[in-house]
Structures are given as C-alpha cells and as structure tokens.
C-alpha cells in the first residue's frame, strides 16, 4: 500500500546476533495514495487501520472511502541508528509487523 516498502526485516535476517545491528540514520516516510475507482468496479474490502509505536520506530496505516475514492495514508519511521543484541528479538518483531502493514491490498469486484 505504500509506494516504497521499507522492508525492515530484510536487515534482520539472522535469528540472533552477537553484535549490534546498524540501521543507519533515522528516516520517515509519509505516503498518501488516492485511488479513484471506475464505475465498473465496487469495493469489496479495504485494509483495516493499524498502527504501532515502539522504541525502534513506528507505523500507521489508515484507509478512508469517500464515494468512488479510496484514500490510503501510510506513515512509518525508524528512530534509532543501532539495535543491541538484547533488543534484537523485539526489533525483529517490530520489523515484521511494519513490513506486513505495508503489504495490504484493496480488493475490488465487478459491479453487478
């Protein structure tokens, strides 16, 4: 649903670590996508809103439908430049949830 997926979990593929994981400079994205749906289609489902805030970063996805327009607003950020081995498990969980939040779909169906 976002334009550029952050794919944070790709930076954390080891199940455990001995040393810190460097994430780089903290960054954020704020993406709004407005879809106009043609008359030939109607909305079957839109992603549920979700959000999370953690010491590593956060994300929020909201979807609004107004007539034939669906607006998806997604935000995510990373807050810290490195993760310690003790924090690593919790970071992976956060990364997984963030990645999943960026992978939702709008499902449409043919209008009757």
């Amino acid at each position, binding site marked *: *649903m976002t*334009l*550029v*997926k952050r794919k944070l979990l790709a*930076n954390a*593929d*080891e199940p455990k*670590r*001995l*040393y*810190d*994981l*460097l*994430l*780089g*400079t*903290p*960054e*954020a*994205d*704020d*993406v*709004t*996508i*407005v*879809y*106009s*749906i*043609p008359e*030939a*289609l109607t909305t*079957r489902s839109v992603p549920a809103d979700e959000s999370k805030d953690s010491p590593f*970063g956060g994300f929020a996805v909201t979807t609004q439908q107004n007539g034939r327009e669906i607006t998806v607003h997604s935000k995510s*950020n*990373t*807050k810290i*430049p*490195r993760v310690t081995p003790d924090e690593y498990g919790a970071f992976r969980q956060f990364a997984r949830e963030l990645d999943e939040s960026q992978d939702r*779909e*709008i*499902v*449409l*169906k*043919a209008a009757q």
Partner: protein
Amino acid sequence: MASSTTAATRWCASAARVIRKDGKIDDAPAPPGSSWVKFPPLAVGDTIDVEARIDTVRVGIFGNYFGVRHLFHGLGMAATRHSEQIYVAPSDRELHFSKRNGAPEPKITKDTESNTSTYRFALDGLKKLQIESSMPDPIEYSPSVSVSTYGKWEDFTAWWWNLIEKECQSSPAIRDKVAELLKGKTTREEKMRAIYDFVVTDVRYNAWEFGCTGYRPYNASTIFDRRYGDCKDKAILIKTMLNAAGIEAYPVLIFADDRRPKEDMSLPMVGLFNHCIAWVPDGDGVAPMFLDGTARSHPMGVLPDMDHGARVVVVKDGKPLLMDVGYPAAGANLDAVELRLALQPDGSAKGTLVMRPKGNYDVRMREIYGSEQGAQKENLERFLSPHLGRTKVSELTTSDLTNLDVPVEVRATIEVEKLAKSKAMIWRSR
C-alpha cells in the same frame, strides 16, 4: 599485517612461515626490506606466522608525532593463536597507550645502553570474530592497543592549530565576495546560508588524502582563488568567510563513516580522523550547527549520513571541544509522497505524483533528478516501476534542484500499465 598513520614510516616483514596442520613448517618468502610476503598455497587448518616491523624513518609533516592503533586479530578477523605488538621508543619519549576490549597490559623493559624502552603486548587464543550483516567495524569488538605521543587533546589540537592557523587568513578578494554574498542578508541564518551555499556549490570538491601529508590545508585565499579544495580546504574557507562576516566558526576533525563504530577518543591520534568540517556556535537565535563543505547537494542544516553519530573534535583557536554530531530525528529525513491514481476498468491507472522530500531524501532527489536533466523521466520511471508495475511518465516538472535554499518538489503525470490484477472478476490493487 599492520599499518601506520604516517607517510614517514617503513613497513617491513622480517619473518613469515606457514605451520601446517600436521606440524610441518613451510617458510614464506619475505625478501629483506620488502613490505610483502608471498605465502605458499594454504589449506584449512594452517597457521600463518608473520613478524613485521614498522620504523619511523624520517620526520614528516607530523613532526615527531607517533600514533597507531593495532588490532590483535589477524587478517580477516581470523582465529589468532598468538598476537604480539612491540613498541620500541627512546626512553625519554613518553608514549601513551589506550587498551580496548580486553587488550593486555604491557610488559615494559628498559635498555640503558641504547636508551630505549620496549613495551610488549601479547595475547593468545583469540577466537575468530564472527562477522554479521550490518555490524559495526570490528574495531568495536576486537582487542586493540592504541599508542600516541599525545596524551592530552589540548596538546594535539594546539599542534594542529599551529599547523593550520596561518592558512585561515582572509584576503581582499574574500572580503569582497563576502560583502557581495551578504548584500540584502540581514539575519545570521541568511548570512550563514549564503556563505555555505557558495562554498558547497561554487568551490569544487577535489579529494586529496586526509591522512599523511593531506593534513595541511591550503591557504584560504588560494582555495578561494582557484575555486577548488578538499574537505579541510572547504572547512577552512567556510571558517574564514564566516569570520569575515563577523560569525564565529571553527574547524572540526571527524571520522566520516556510514557504518560507524563506537569510537574510543581516549587518546589523541591523527588516525582517528579522515574528514574535516566546520562548526558554528549558536548566536542570534540560530542553534549551533555543523557545516560540511563537501556536501554539494545538501542544504544547510542537512549533513551527509557519514557525519552523523560521530564523536568529533572542534578546534577552537587551538583548544579542543569534544562534541557529538548526533543523529537527526526521523522526521527530518522524510520521504513525502502524494499519489492520485484513477484506476481504469482494465487494471491500468493514470494519475499524478507529487514528491516533497526532506533531509537526506531531499539530497537524493537533487542528485538523481538534478544531475541528469535529460533523463529525469527515465529515472522516475525506473524508480516507480518496481513499486507500481511498469510506469510511464508523460510529464515531469521539478523545483530548482540547483538552488539549495528551495525545497525539492517533483511533480509528474504517470500511467501505470497494470496497477490492479484481476482474478475471477476480483481486482486486487497494489
């Protein structure tokens, strides 16, 4: 096996051999005076044994300074059976040591006949340092010894300031240019921005090595006249021009690194730095700020990622100020996008895209879309297609990407070949 921080040194392997798994020993040729060793083919289980010596052979730009940091691990952070560092110096020459990550205490012996002192650090049985993805530099974890003839930062910065102070002199041409740049500028921030913009855009970056003889900057007047310089030249020019505008500014020694380890700054050493920027204290409501003169696409206030997180030494009239550059808040580096897409019955889409990036995203946009004006549409298509599916950009306009004072804005009209996929009359939009 080892490296020295000065050009006035000679590295020489004095003995090298391979101890095979079965105990057999094969000598490795290390011709006298050579700085290389030719090992025979190696096999798993072999142990490499190398003895090398670094001599200071002449007085270089660093005078009688000596400084080096050496890890106990062997090449490639390999398992190391025995590692020994021996420092030999005149007994009346004070050496300062800093040990990290379990490095041992030295055994010190004195030879009255040669008037030398020998400091011997030995460590046995080091396990291979596990390499993980995106980990800090092994210097953060491997046992190491640093040695320097400087024990205090005050002495180190006084020495460096003595080396560069006379290069910070202004000239009539510099003063004229500063007056020209400051025309109509009333606030401190406007003045800083005008001078910063001039140095990063009108003075070409030309890298010389920062170590060794690259430590002495050219004179500010020379840098200004020929309009090019390296990091320390640009830092010196920023300082000199800001000073001419009545604004305090100081050079800063920094280690630029995108994969920054936790730095050990307990011992002053030349090798702790590879880059030079400037620092402006707060004043007239403007917060203190680091300025990197090499950051050609970075608006004032946006530092290259390689500068963030660094422990630095600000050299304030020869005195040291140890500071942290710090990291920006996440929102300062913002990828802001607005996309309006009209989905068509066949799954394609037409629409508009507006990007208003901040911080390091602003910089990336300037570099991508500002450097190749003729390839802007193609570059945007290349960026969008992996995320939206094959995309064609029919119109594209940007803000003035060469003007660092104008925020970046990219507007485009796009067509997406297949935004939604159909399956049994159900469409799934990306």
